[in-house]
């Protein structure tokens, strides 16, 4: 009697196993990884077909597509990880056009030697984020690179969505007189991630604010279809986002420092390191620019949503041929809120 069990393969060792080059080679090992980890976690009709591509009927309306690569380090941080971040990030980029996100794709570059336990944690976090948001990951890809040539895992997600009729949200639509709003507390994500970097050890209870904003955007667009601009202030913070928009729209902006919603702990952490909260990344916030007569209604709608409880009007758009973003300081003076120079590095002086 044969001792070979029919159709039996030893399951992947998620406790102690590591990624190796065979997982990216296209052979049996890779198929097993895809099956036991990716398909099992994301589990939807598209992935179960096991094709290299996903077929779906053409959505009606104007389509939007966006892509984002995620290289965050450390991979796990208070409030999230690279997995859910990659889902939220692309959903948000699609949503910033006013679109309803429909589908995601996900590409992974894994480093040889990366623990399967960590990979499983990341994939399950992605799957949870995808389920919670109602946006399935319908196709994907995996590659493996040699040890030392990757930072554990890099993830690229692409998303598509559909923009409702009558909605025309774009960076060049800011007009003098418009109001500038933000959906909540600034700087949480950047501080949460920085608190884990070695040589910068400080202890806070700040969590990353990583979140999918498409539900909030849907409420906002329903109440004020003619929102002019939406953008999420990720790398480089609110300052960078507003400078981009100012340049695109050929306008200036005036912010009011005492209207900016920032947590005490985030302010304190920035003091310690000599950083400016305006330049610190956010992963679950958006900036909105609308006509002045719509601002109050938009603010109320935002505050009614769980992800917009701390929303605030923080400034207005003005005429300015130099496209400066300026700020009235809490102190009573005025300063420019300039583009970020290089990378934000902690200073001693």
């Amino acid at each position, binding site marked *: 009697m044969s001792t070979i069990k029919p159709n039996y393969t030893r399951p992947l060792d998620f406790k102690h196993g590591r990624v190796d080059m065979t997982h990216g080679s296209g052979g049996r090992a890779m198929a097993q990884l895809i099956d036991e980890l990716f398909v099992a976690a994301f589990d939807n009709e598209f992935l179960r077909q096991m094709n290299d591509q996903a077929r779906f009927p053409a959505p009606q309306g104007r389509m939007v597509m966006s892509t984002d690569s995620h290289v965050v380090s450390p991979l796990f941080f208070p409030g999230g990880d690279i997995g859910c971040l990659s889902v939220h990030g692309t959903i948000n980029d699609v949503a910033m056009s006013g679109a309803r996100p429909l589908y995601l794709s996900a590409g992974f570059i894994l480093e040889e030697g990366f623990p399967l336990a960590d990979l499983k944690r990341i994939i399950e976090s992605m799957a949870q984020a995808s389920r919670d948001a109602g946006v399935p990951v319908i196709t994907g890809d995996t590659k493996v690179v040699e040890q030392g040539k990757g930072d554990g895992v890099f993830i690229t997600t692409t998303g598509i969505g559909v923009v409702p009729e009558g909605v025309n949200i774009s960076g060049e639509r800011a007009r003098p007189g418009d109001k500038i709003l933000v959906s909540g507390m600034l700087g949480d994500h950047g501080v949460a991630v920085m608190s884990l970097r070695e040589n910068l*050890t*400080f*202890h*806070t*209870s700040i969590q990353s604010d990583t979140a999918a904003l498409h539900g909030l955007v849907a409420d906002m667009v329903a109440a004020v279809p003619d929102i002019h601009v939406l953008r999420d202030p990720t790398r480089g913070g609110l300052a960078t986002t507003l400078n981009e928009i100012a340049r695109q729209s050929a306008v200036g902006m005036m912010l009011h420092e005492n209207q900016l919603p920032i947590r*005490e*702990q985030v*302010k*304190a*952490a920035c*003091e*310690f390191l*000599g950083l400016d909260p305006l330049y610190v990344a956010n992963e679950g916030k958006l900036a909105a620019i609308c006509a002045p007569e719509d601002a109050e209604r938009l603010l109320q709608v935002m505050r009614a949503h769980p992800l917009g409880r701390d929303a605030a009007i923080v400034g207005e758009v003005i005429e300015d041929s130099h496209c400066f973003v300026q700020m009235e300081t809490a102190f009573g003076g005025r300063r420019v809120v300039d583009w970020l120079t290089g990378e934000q590095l902690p*200073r*001693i*002086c």
Partner: protein
Amino acid sequence: MCLAIPTCVEQLIGKDSAIVNLGGVRKEVSLALIEDVAVGDYVIVHVGFALQKLDPEEAAQTLALFAEIGGAAPE
């Protein structure tokens, strides 16, 4: 040459270190450059070292000076 901040000493660790608290953010700093620090004192911290204790009475007096309405010469 100055980025230094006033923080509250929350806990002493051994002879030479302390945990300080600023607005809810905690950090361990060295006390090698300072003496007689007690929990509850405020110290100025620069590059991970406490440099000087803050004098609460002087601080209060300085704040009062700011509020003076013009003309009076400082003490």
